[in-house]
Protein backbone atom coordinates (compact mmCIF):
# COMPACT_ATOMS: atom_id res chain seq x y z
CA UNK A 1 0.00 0.00 0.00
CA UNK A 2 1.29 3.48 -0.79
CA UNK A 3 1.77 5.47 2.39
CA UNK A 4 2.92 8.63 0.73
CA UNK A 5 3.54 10.04 -2.66
CA UNK A 6 7.13 8.90 -2.75
CA UNK A 7 6.43 5.23 -2.31
CA UNK A 8 5.61 4.55 -5.93
CA UNK A 9 8.97 5.97 -7.01
CA UNK A 10 11.12 3.94 -4.69
CA UNK A 11 13.35 1.36 -6.30
CA UNK A 12 11.37 -1.87 -6.01
CA UNK A 13 12.84 -4.73 -4.08
CA UNK A 14 11.32 -8.03 -3.12
CA UNK A 15 12.54 -9.41 0.18
CA UNK A 16 15.61 -7.29 0.00
CA UNK A 17 16.56 -8.31 -3.53
CA UNK A 18 16.61 -5.52 -6.05
CA UNK A 19 14.32 -6.58 -8.85
CA UNK A 20 14.69 -3.28 -10.65
CA UNK A 21 17.12 -5.06 -12.98
CA UNK A 22 14.33 -7.44 -14.01
CA UNK A 23 11.97 -4.55 -14.48
CA UNK A 24 14.46 -2.73 -16.71
CA UNK A 25 15.02 -5.87 -18.77
CA UNK A 26 11.33 -6.67 -19.09
CA UNK A 27 10.38 -4.48 -22.10
CA UNK A 28 12.80 -6.36 -24.33
CA UNK A 29 10.50 -9.40 -24.12
CA UNK A 30 7.75 -7.38 -25.74
CA UNK A 31 9.74 -6.98 -28.98
CA UNK A 32 10.04 -10.50 -30.40
CA UNK A 33 12.62 -11.27 -33.04
CA UNK A 34 11.16 -11.74 -36.48
CA UNK A 35 12.05 -15.29 -37.40
CA UNK A 36 10.27 -15.67 -40.73
CA UNK A 37 9.57 -13.60 -43.77
CA UNK A 38 5.89 -13.18 -42.91
CA UNK A 39 5.40 -12.83 -39.16
CA UNK A 40 2.52 -12.52 -36.78
CA UNK A 41 0.62 -9.27 -36.36
CA UNK A 42 2.61 -7.97 -33.42
CA UNK A 43 5.94 -8.30 -35.19
CA UNK A 44 4.53 -6.92 -38.43
CA UNK A 45 3.27 -3.79 -36.71
CA UNK A 46 6.50 -3.36 -34.75
CA UNK A 47 8.55 -3.76 -37.92
CA UNK A 48 6.43 -1.19 -39.70
CA UNK A 49 6.71 1.28 -36.81
CA UNK A 50 10.46 0.83 -36.55
CA UNK A 51 10.86 1.35 -40.29
CA UNK A 52 8.77 4.51 -40.15
CA UNK A 53 10.62 5.93 -37.17
CA UNK A 54 14.10 5.07 -38.36
CA UNK A 55 13.49 6.63 -41.77
CA UNK A 56 12.29 9.78 -40.07
CA UNK A 57 15.15 9.95 -37.59
CA UNK A 58 18.04 9.07 -39.85
CA UNK A 59 17.04 11.19 -42.81
CA UNK A 60 19.15 14.14 -41.69
CA UNK A 61 22.32 12.22 -41.05
CA UNK A 62 25.23 11.52 -43.33
CA UNK A 63 27.03 8.22 -43.69
CA UNK A 64 28.90 8.67 -40.42
CA UNK A 65 25.82 9.61 -38.45
CA UNK A 66 23.90 6.63 -39.74
CA UNK A 67 26.24 4.24 -37.95
CA UNK A 68 24.34 5.33 -34.84
CA UNK A 69 21.06 3.95 -36.23
CA UNK A 70 20.90 0.92 -33.97
CA UNK A 71 21.71 3.01 -30.91
CA UNK A 72 19.04 5.61 -31.64
CA UNK A 73 16.36 3.06 -32.46
CA UNK A 74 17.06 1.00 -29.34
CA UNK A 75 16.97 4.22 -27.31
CA UNK A 76 13.58 5.31 -28.56
CA UNK A 77 12.13 1.83 -28.22
CA UNK A 78 13.44 1.43 -24.68
CA UNK A 79 12.29 4.80 -23.41
CA UNK A 80 8.93 4.52 -25.16
CA UNK A 81 8.18 1.06 -23.89
CA UNK A 82 9.28 1.74 -20.32
CA UNK A 83 7.23 4.92 -20.20
CA UNK A 84 4.13 3.21 -21.56
CA UNK A 85 4.49 0.23 -19.24
CA UNK A 86 4.82 2.63 -16.32
CA UNK A 87 1.28 3.87 -16.89
CA UNK A 88 -0.15 0.53 -15.84
CA UNK A 89 -1.36 0.47 -12.25
CA UNK A 90 1.09 -0.46 -9.54
CA UNK A 91 4.02 -0.55 -11.93
CA UNK A 92 7.46 0.93 -11.59
CA UNK A 93 8.92 3.18 -14.28
CA UNK A 94 12.71 3.09 -14.45
CA UNK A 95 12.84 6.39 -16.30
CA UNK A 96 11.57 8.23 -13.25
CA UNK A 97 14.95 7.64 -11.64
CA UNK A 98 17.39 10.43 -12.39
CA UNK A 99 20.25 8.02 -11.98
CA UNK A 100 19.12 5.95 -14.92
CA UNK A 101 18.41 8.91 -17.15
CA UNK A 102 21.78 10.43 -16.40
CA UNK A 103 23.28 7.06 -17.17
CA UNK A 104 21.62 7.20 -20.60
CA UNK A 105 22.17 10.87 -21.37
CA UNK A 106 25.77 11.50 -20.34
CA UNK A 107 27.43 8.67 -22.29
CA UNK A 108 25.43 9.39 -25.41
CA UNK A 109 26.08 13.11 -25.29
CA UNK A 110 29.74 12.56 -24.50
CA UNK A 111 29.94 10.15 -27.42
CA UNK A 112 28.65 12.76 -29.85
CA UNK A 113 30.96 15.48 -28.50
CA UNK A 114 34.05 13.28 -28.54
CA UNK A 115 33.21 12.12 -32.08
CA UNK A 116 32.96 15.74 -33.11
CA UNK A 117 36.24 16.69 -31.50
CA UNK A 118 38.02 13.70 -32.94
CA UNK A 119 36.98 14.02 -36.57
CA UNK A 120 36.13 17.68 -37.05
CA UNK A 121 38.12 19.44 -34.34
CA UNK A 122 38.01 22.90 -35.87
CA UNK A 123 34.30 22.75 -36.62
CA UNK A 124 33.49 21.48 -33.13
CA UNK A 125 35.47 24.24 -31.52
CA UNK A 126 33.83 26.72 -33.85
CA UNK A 127 30.47 25.82 -32.37
CA UNK A 128 31.47 27.73 -29.26
CA UNK A 129 31.22 31.03 -31.09
CA UNK A 130 28.11 31.87 -33.11
CA UNK A 131 28.59 33.75 -36.32
CA UNK A 132 28.46 37.50 -36.37
CA UNK A 133 29.15 38.34 -32.74
CA UNK A 134 30.60 41.76 -32.04
CA UNK A 135 34.22 41.65 -30.89
CA UNK A 136 33.91 42.76 -27.24
CA UNK A 137 31.31 40.10 -26.49
CA UNK A 138 33.44 37.16 -27.61
CA UNK A 139 34.93 36.02 -24.28
CA UNK A 140 31.61 36.14 -22.51
CA UNK A 141 29.91 34.31 -25.36
CA UNK A 142 32.50 31.54 -25.34
CA UNK A 143 31.87 30.99 -21.65
CA UNK A 144 28.13 30.98 -22.21
CA UNK A 145 28.39 28.51 -25.07
CA UNK A 146 30.59 26.23 -22.97
CA UNK A 147 28.06 26.26 -20.18
CA UNK A 148 25.33 25.60 -22.73
CA UNK A 149 27.24 22.63 -24.07
CA UNK A 150 27.82 21.07 -20.66
CA UNK A 151 24.24 21.57 -19.67
CA UNK A 152 23.01 19.47 -22.59
CA UNK A 153 23.28 16.04 -20.89
CA UNK A 154 21.84 17.43 -17.67
CA UNK A 155 18.93 18.90 -19.57
CA UNK A 156 18.32 15.63 -21.40
CA UNK A 157 18.24 13.58 -18.21
CA UNK A 158 16.32 16.06 -16.09
CA UNK A 159 13.79 16.72 -18.83
CA UNK A 160 12.88 13.07 -19.11
CA UNK A 161 12.86 12.47 -15.37
CA UNK A 162 10.81 15.55 -14.58
CA UNK A 163 8.22 14.93 -17.26
CA UNK A 164 7.56 11.34 -16.39
CA UNK A 165 7.71 11.88 -12.65
CA UNK A 166 5.42 14.88 -12.85
CA UNK A 167 2.94 12.94 -14.91
CA UNK A 168 2.87 10.02 -12.50
CA UNK A 169 2.59 12.36 -9.57
CA UNK A 170 -0.34 14.23 -11.09
CA UNK A 171 -2.18 11.02 -11.81
CA UNK A 172 -1.60 9.93 -8.22
CA UNK A 173 -2.76 13.25 -6.82
CA UNK A 174 -5.87 13.55 -8.92
CA UNK A 175 -6.71 9.93 -8.18
CA UNK A 176 -6.37 10.77 -4.51
CA UNK A 177 -8.58 13.80 -4.98
CA UNK A 178 -11.25 11.67 -6.61
CA UNK A 179 -11.03 9.20 -3.77
CA UNK A 180 -11.36 11.95 -1.18
CA UNK A 181 -14.24 13.66 -2.98
CA UNK A 182 -16.37 10.56 -3.38
CA UNK A 183 -17.66 10.78 0.18
CA UNK A 184 -18.19 14.54 -0.03
CA UNK A 185 -19.83 15.12 -3.37
CA UNK A 186 -20.25 12.51 -6.07
CA UNK A 187 -20.58 15.04 -8.90
CA UNK A 188 -17.30 16.75 -8.15
CA UNK A 189 -15.71 13.36 -7.85
CA UNK A 190 -17.06 12.49 -11.25
CA UNK A 191 -15.66 15.68 -12.79
CA UNK A 192 -12.33 14.93 -11.17
CA UNK A 193 -12.50 11.46 -12.62
CA UNK A 194 -13.04 12.92 -16.08
CA UNK A 195 -9.99 15.09 -15.53
CA UNK A 196 -8.12 11.94 -14.56
CA UNK A 197 -9.12 10.25 -17.81
CA UNK A 198 -7.96 13.24 -19.85
CA UNK A 199 -4.74 13.28 -17.92
CA UNK A 200 -4.22 9.61 -18.66
CA UNK A 201 -4.61 10.28 -22.37
CA UNK A 202 -2.08 13.08 -22.02
CA UNK A 203 0.29 10.81 -20.20
CA UNK A 204 0.16 8.24 -22.95
CA UNK A 205 1.07 10.93 -25.42
CA UNK A 206 3.79 12.33 -23.16
CA UNK A 207 5.31 8.92 -22.73
CA UNK A 208 5.82 8.57 -26.45
CA UNK A 209 6.72 12.19 -27.03
CA UNK A 210 9.41 12.23 -24.38
CA UNK A 211 11.03 9.17 -25.88
CA UNK A 212 10.99 10.85 -29.24
CA UNK A 213 12.36 14.11 -27.90
CA UNK A 214 15.22 12.41 -26.12
CA UNK A 215 16.22 10.50 -29.17
CA UNK A 216 15.76 13.46 -31.44
CA UNK A 217 18.02 15.64 -29.35
CA UNK A 218 20.72 13.00 -29.23
CA UNK A 219 20.43 12.73 -32.97
CA UNK A 220 20.70 16.49 -33.33
CA UNK A 221 23.84 16.60 -31.19
CA UNK A 222 25.15 13.84 -33.41
CA UNK A 223 24.27 15.78 -36.53
CA UNK A 224 26.18 18.77 -35.29
CA UNK A 225 29.23 16.70 -34.67
CA UNK A 226 29.46 14.41 -37.71
Amino acid sequence: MNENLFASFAAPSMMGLPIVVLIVMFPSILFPTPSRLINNRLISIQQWLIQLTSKQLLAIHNQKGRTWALMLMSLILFIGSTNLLGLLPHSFTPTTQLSMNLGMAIPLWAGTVITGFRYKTKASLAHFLPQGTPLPLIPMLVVIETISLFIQPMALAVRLTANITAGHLLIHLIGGATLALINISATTAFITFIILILLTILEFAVALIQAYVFTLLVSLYLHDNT
Partner: protein
Amino acid sequence: SDGAPGPGHWDADAAAGGLVDLAVPGGAFSGRRAPCLKNPVLGPGVLQAIRIFHTRQPSLAPIPCVPEYGGKVCLGLIPKEFFQFLYPKTGVRGPYVLGTGLILYSLSKEIYVITAETFSAISTIGLLIYVVKKYGASIGEFADKLSEQKIAQLEEVKQASIQQIQDAIDTEKSQQALVQKRHYLFDVQRNNIAMALELTYRERLHRVYREVKNRLDYHISVQNMMRRKEQEHMINWVEKHVVQSISAQQEKETIAKCIAGLKLLAKKAPSQPVL
Protein backbone atom coordinates in the same frame (compact mmCIF):
# COMPACT_ATOMS: atom_id res chain seq x y z
CA SER B 1 -0.92 -46.09 -39.73
CA ASP B 2 0.28 -44.52 -42.90
CA GLY B 3 3.96 -44.27 -43.66
CA ALA B 4 4.24 -40.48 -44.08
CA PRO B 5 3.74 -38.56 -40.82
CA GLY B 6 1.51 -35.50 -40.69
CA PRO B 7 2.89 -31.97 -40.79
CA GLY B 8 4.84 -31.07 -37.72
CA HIS B 9 5.03 -34.62 -36.45
CA TRP B 10 8.33 -36.11 -35.86
CA ASP B 11 9.32 -39.03 -38.00
CA ALA B 12 11.55 -40.97 -35.66
CA ASP B 13 12.79 -43.37 -38.29
CA ALA B 14 13.73 -40.73 -40.80
CA ALA B 15 15.32 -38.55 -38.13
CA ALA B 16 17.27 -41.40 -36.67
CA GLY B 17 18.20 -42.64 -40.11
CA GLY B 18 19.13 -39.14 -41.11
CA LEU B 19 21.24 -38.66 -38.02
CA VAL B 20 22.93 -41.96 -38.52
CA ASP B 21 23.60 -41.10 -42.12
CA LEU B 22 25.06 -37.74 -41.17
CA ALA B 23 27.33 -39.40 -38.64
CA VAL B 24 28.89 -41.59 -41.26
CA PRO B 25 31.89 -39.83 -42.74
CA GLY B 26 31.58 -39.09 -46.39
CA GLY B 27 28.00 -37.90 -46.44
CA ALA B 28 24.45 -38.65 -45.51
CA PHE B 29 23.86 -41.18 -48.22
CA SER B 30 26.99 -43.25 -48.24
CA GLY B 31 26.46 -46.84 -49.23
CA ARG B 32 22.86 -47.58 -48.65
CA ARG B 33 21.11 -45.16 -50.91
CA ALA B 34 23.69 -43.53 -53.15
CA PRO B 35 26.80 -45.53 -53.85
CA CYS B 36 28.01 -42.76 -56.16
CA LEU B 37 28.89 -40.73 -53.08
CA LYS B 38 31.44 -43.21 -51.90
CA ASN B 39 33.93 -41.49 -54.16
CA PRO B 40 35.92 -39.34 -51.73
CA VAL B 41 36.82 -36.72 -54.32
CA LEU B 42 33.40 -35.97 -55.75
CA GLY B 43 31.25 -37.15 -52.85
CA PRO B 44 30.99 -33.87 -50.91
CA GLY B 45 30.15 -31.90 -54.01
CA VAL B 46 27.39 -34.26 -54.99
CA LEU B 47 26.14 -34.18 -51.41
CA GLN B 48 25.69 -30.42 -51.54
CA ALA B 49 23.90 -30.69 -54.84
CA ILE B 50 21.35 -33.22 -53.64
CA ARG B 51 20.83 -31.91 -50.10
CA ILE B 52 17.27 -32.44 -48.94
CA PHE B 53 15.07 -29.39 -49.04
CA HIS B 54 13.05 -28.50 -45.94
CA THR B 55 10.12 -30.83 -45.93
CA ARG B 56 9.48 -30.77 -42.20
CA GLN B 57 10.08 -28.59 -39.15
CA PRO B 58 13.75 -27.72 -38.79
CA SER B 59 13.85 -28.87 -35.17
CA LEU B 60 14.51 -32.50 -34.38
CA ALA B 61 12.46 -32.43 -31.14
CA PRO B 62 8.75 -33.30 -31.18
CA ILE B 63 7.15 -29.85 -31.12
CA PRO B 64 3.50 -29.27 -31.98
CA CYS B 65 2.35 -27.08 -34.83
CA VAL B 66 2.18 -23.34 -34.16
CA PRO B 67 -1.54 -22.49 -34.10
CA GLU B 68 -2.82 -19.82 -36.44
CA TYR B 69 -5.22 -18.16 -34.01
CA GLY B 70 -4.89 -17.72 -30.26
CA GLY B 71 -6.96 -19.65 -27.75
CA LYS B 72 -10.44 -18.43 -26.96
CA VAL B 73 -10.67 -16.20 -23.88
CA CYS B 74 -13.45 -14.78 -21.80
CA LEU B 75 -13.17 -11.19 -20.49
CA GLY B 76 -9.93 -10.94 -22.45
CA LEU B 77 -8.01 -12.69 -19.70
CA ILE B 78 -9.31 -16.08 -18.70
CA PRO B 79 -9.11 -19.00 -21.13
CA LYS B 80 -12.33 -20.74 -22.01
CA GLU B 81 -10.84 -24.03 -20.80
CA PHE B 82 -11.24 -22.77 -17.22
CA PHE B 83 -14.96 -22.26 -17.75
CA GLN B 84 -15.17 -25.68 -19.32
CA PHE B 85 -13.29 -27.11 -16.33
CA LEU B 86 -15.79 -25.68 -13.82
CA TYR B 87 -18.88 -26.37 -15.89
CA PRO B 88 -19.66 -29.93 -14.72
CA LYS B 89 -19.65 -28.92 -11.06
CA THR B 90 -20.99 -25.37 -11.05
CA GLY B 91 -22.72 -24.82 -14.36
CA VAL B 92 -22.50 -21.80 -16.59
CA ARG B 93 -22.45 -19.08 -13.95
CA GLY B 94 -19.89 -20.80 -11.75
CA PRO B 95 -16.72 -19.00 -12.81
CA TYR B 96 -18.42 -15.61 -12.72
CA VAL B 97 -19.67 -16.18 -9.20
CA LEU B 98 -16.20 -17.33 -8.21
CA GLY B 99 -14.63 -14.20 -9.67
CA THR B 100 -17.14 -11.86 -8.08
CA GLY B 101 -16.74 -13.58 -4.74
CA LEU B 102 -12.98 -13.31 -4.83
CA ILE B 103 -13.09 -9.62 -5.72
CA LEU B 104 -15.61 -8.81 -3.00
CA TYR B 105 -13.64 -10.86 -0.48
CA SER B 106 -10.41 -9.05 -1.24
CA LEU B 107 -12.19 -5.69 -1.03
CA SER B 108 -13.97 -6.35 2.19
CA LYS B 109 -10.97 -7.79 3.96
CA GLU B 110 -8.83 -4.92 2.62
CA ILE B 111 -6.50 -7.36 0.92
CA TYR B 112 -6.90 -5.02 -2.02
CA VAL B 113 -7.00 -1.48 -0.64
CA ILE B 114 -8.80 1.26 -2.53
CA THR B 115 -6.26 4.04 -2.90
CA ALA B 116 -5.56 6.79 -5.41
CA GLU B 117 -3.95 4.15 -7.52
CA THR B 118 -7.32 2.44 -7.90
CA PHE B 119 -8.77 5.36 -9.78
CA SER B 120 -5.75 5.74 -12.00
CA ALA B 121 -5.99 2.01 -12.64
CA ILE B 122 -9.66 2.34 -13.54
CA SER B 123 -8.97 5.21 -15.91
CA THR B 124 -5.94 3.59 -17.55
CA ILE B 125 -7.45 0.15 -17.95
CA GLY B 126 -10.77 1.62 -19.03
CA LEU B 127 -9.01 3.69 -21.66
CA LEU B 128 -7.07 0.69 -22.91
CA ILE B 129 -10.18 -1.48 -23.15
CA TYR B 130 -12.00 1.25 -25.03
CA VAL B 131 -9.17 1.69 -27.52
CA VAL B 132 -8.76 -2.05 -28.06
CA LYS B 133 -12.46 -2.61 -28.57
CA LYS B 134 -12.82 0.27 -30.98
CA TYR B 135 -9.64 0.04 -33.03
CA GLY B 136 -8.44 -3.49 -32.40
CA ALA B 137 -9.96 -5.08 -35.48
CA SER B 138 -8.76 -2.33 -37.81
CA ILE B 139 -5.21 -2.51 -36.47
CA GLY B 140 -5.29 -6.28 -36.97
CA GLU B 141 -6.43 -5.76 -40.53
CA PHE B 142 -3.66 -3.25 -41.07
CA ALA B 143 -1.09 -5.76 -39.88
CA ASP B 144 -2.58 -8.39 -42.16
CA LYS B 145 -2.46 -5.93 -45.00
CA LEU B 146 1.27 -5.35 -44.39
CA SER B 147 1.92 -9.07 -44.62
CA GLU B 148 -0.25 -9.37 -47.69
CA GLN B 149 1.63 -6.57 -49.37
CA LYS B 150 4.91 -8.35 -48.78
CA ILE B 151 3.54 -11.60 -50.15
CA ALA B 152 1.95 -9.80 -53.08
CA GLN B 153 5.27 -8.19 -53.98
CA LEU B 154 7.04 -11.51 -54.05
CA GLU B 155 4.14 -13.12 -55.86
CA GLU B 156 4.29 -10.38 -58.45
CA VAL B 157 7.96 -11.04 -59.00
CA LYS B 158 7.23 -14.71 -59.39
CA GLN B 159 4.35 -14.08 -61.77
CA ALA B 160 6.40 -11.63 -63.78
CA SER B 161 9.13 -14.20 -64.10
CA ILE B 162 6.64 -16.86 -65.13
CA GLN B 163 5.03 -14.48 -67.60
CA GLN B 164 8.41 -13.62 -69.06
CA ILE B 165 9.23 -17.25 -69.56
CA GLN B 166 5.80 -17.90 -71.03
CA ASP B 167 6.27 -15.04 -73.48
CA ALA B 168 9.66 -16.41 -74.41
CA ILE B 169 8.09 -19.82 -75.02
CA ASP B 170 5.37 -18.31 -77.18
CA THR B 171 7.87 -16.29 -79.17
CA GLU B 172 9.98 -19.36 -79.70
CA LYS B 173 6.97 -21.35 -80.84
CA SER B 174 5.94 -18.66 -83.28
CA GLN B 175 9.48 -18.48 -84.59
CA GLN B 176 9.42 -22.21 -85.12
CA ALA B 177 6.10 -21.97 -86.91
CA LEU B 178 7.55 -19.27 -89.12
CA VAL B 179 10.45 -21.50 -89.97
CA GLN B 180 7.94 -24.11 -91.17
CA LYS B 181 6.41 -21.61 -93.56
CA ARG B 182 9.67 -20.33 -94.94
CA HIS B 183 9.34 -22.46 -98.08
CA TYR B 184 6.56 -20.18 -99.33
CA LEU B 185 9.00 -17.33 -99.34
CA PHE B 186 11.57 -19.36 -101.17
CA ASP B 187 9.01 -20.48 -103.77
CA VAL B 188 7.95 -16.95 -104.41
CA GLN B 189 11.53 -15.83 -104.77
CA ARG B 190 12.27 -18.71 -107.08
CA ASN B 191 9.24 -17.86 -109.19
CA ASN B 192 10.30 -14.26 -109.34
CA ILE B 193 13.75 -15.13 -110.51
CA ALA B 194 12.42 -17.59 -113.08
CA MET B 195 10.05 -14.98 -114.45
CA ALA B 196 12.79 -12.42 -114.63
CA LEU B 197 15.00 -14.82 -116.52
CA GLU B 198 12.18 -15.73 -118.89
CA LEU B 199 11.40 -12.10 -119.47
CA THR B 200 14.98 -11.26 -120.28
CA TYR B 201 15.24 -14.22 -122.62
CA ARG B 202 12.12 -13.28 -124.50
CA GLU B 203 13.12 -9.71 -124.73
CA ARG B 204 16.42 -10.60 -126.24
CA LEU B 205 14.76 -13.05 -128.58
CA HIS B 206 12.43 -10.36 -129.76
CA ARG B 207 15.26 -7.97 -130.27
CA VAL B 208 17.15 -10.50 -132.33
CA TYR B 209 14.06 -11.09 -134.43
CA ARG B 210 13.64 -7.39 -134.97
CA GLU B 211 17.22 -6.86 -136.01
CA VAL B 212 17.11 -9.76 -138.42
CA LYS B 213 13.84 -8.54 -139.86
CA ASN B 214 15.32 -5.11 -140.30
CA ARG B 215 18.14 -6.42 -142.31
CA LEU B 216 15.90 -8.64 -144.44
CA ASP B 217 13.46 -5.77 -145.00
CA TYR B 218 16.33 -3.70 -146.16
CA HIS B 219 17.33 -6.25 -148.74
CA ILE B 220 13.74 -6.66 -149.86
CA SER B 221 13.19 -2.96 -150.25
CA VAL B 222 16.43 -2.66 -152.14
CA GLN B 223 15.23 -5.43 -154.42
CA ASN B 224 11.81 -3.82 -154.84
CA MET B 225 13.34 -0.53 -155.66
CA MET B 226 15.59 -2.08 -158.28
CA ARG B 227 12.62 -3.83 -159.83
CA ARG B 228 10.56 -0.69 -159.87
CA LYS B 229 13.32 1.26 -161.46
CA GLU B 230 13.84 -1.38 -164.04
CA GLN B 231 10.09 -1.43 -164.75
CA GLU B 232 9.88 2.27 -165.12
CA HIS B 233 12.90 2.33 -167.26
CA MET B 234 11.49 -0.38 -169.44
CA ILE B 235 8.14 1.33 -169.72
CA ASN B 236 9.78 4.59 -170.61
CA TRP B 237 11.89 2.85 -173.21
CA VAL B 238 8.89 1.08 -174.68
CA GLU B 239 6.80 4.23 -174.75
CA LYS B 240 9.56 6.16 -176.34
CA HIS B 241 10.06 3.65 -179.06
CA VAL B 242 6.36 3.25 -179.62
CA VAL B 243 5.89 6.95 -179.88
CA GLN B 244 8.86 7.05 -182.19
CA SER B 245 7.46 4.25 -184.27
CA ILE B 246 4.16 5.93 -184.84
CA SER B 247 4.57 7.68 -188.22
CA ALA B 248 2.65 10.74 -189.24
CA GLN B 249 0.43 8.79 -191.67
CA GLN B 250 -0.64 6.29 -189.12
CA GLU B 251 -1.47 9.11 -186.76
CA LYS B 252 -3.76 10.81 -189.23
CA GLU B 253 -5.55 7.59 -190.07
CA THR B 254 -6.11 6.83 -186.44
CA ILE B 255 -7.54 10.26 -185.69
CA ALA B 256 -9.94 10.04 -188.74
CA LYS B 257 -11.15 6.66 -187.55
CA CYS B 258 -11.84 8.05 -184.09
CA ILE B 259 -13.82 10.99 -185.46
CA ALA B 260 -15.95 8.64 -187.63
CA GLY B 261 -16.67 6.48 -184.71
CA LEU B 262 -17.64 9.44 -182.56
CA LYS B 263 -20.02 10.71 -185.25
CA LEU B 264 -21.66 7.31 -185.35
CA LEU B 265 -22.10 7.40 -181.61
CA ALA B 266 -23.46 10.93 -181.82
CA LYS B 267 -26.16 9.73 -184.15
CA LYS B 268 -27.21 6.94 -181.78
CA ALA B 269 -26.97 9.09 -178.69
CA PRO B 270 -29.97 11.50 -178.82
CA SER B 271 -32.43 8.57 -179.02
CA GLN B 272 -31.45 7.72 -175.44
CA PRO B 273 -32.20 10.17 -172.60
CA VAL B 274 -29.28 11.85 -170.88
CA LEU B 275 -29.03 10.59 -167.36
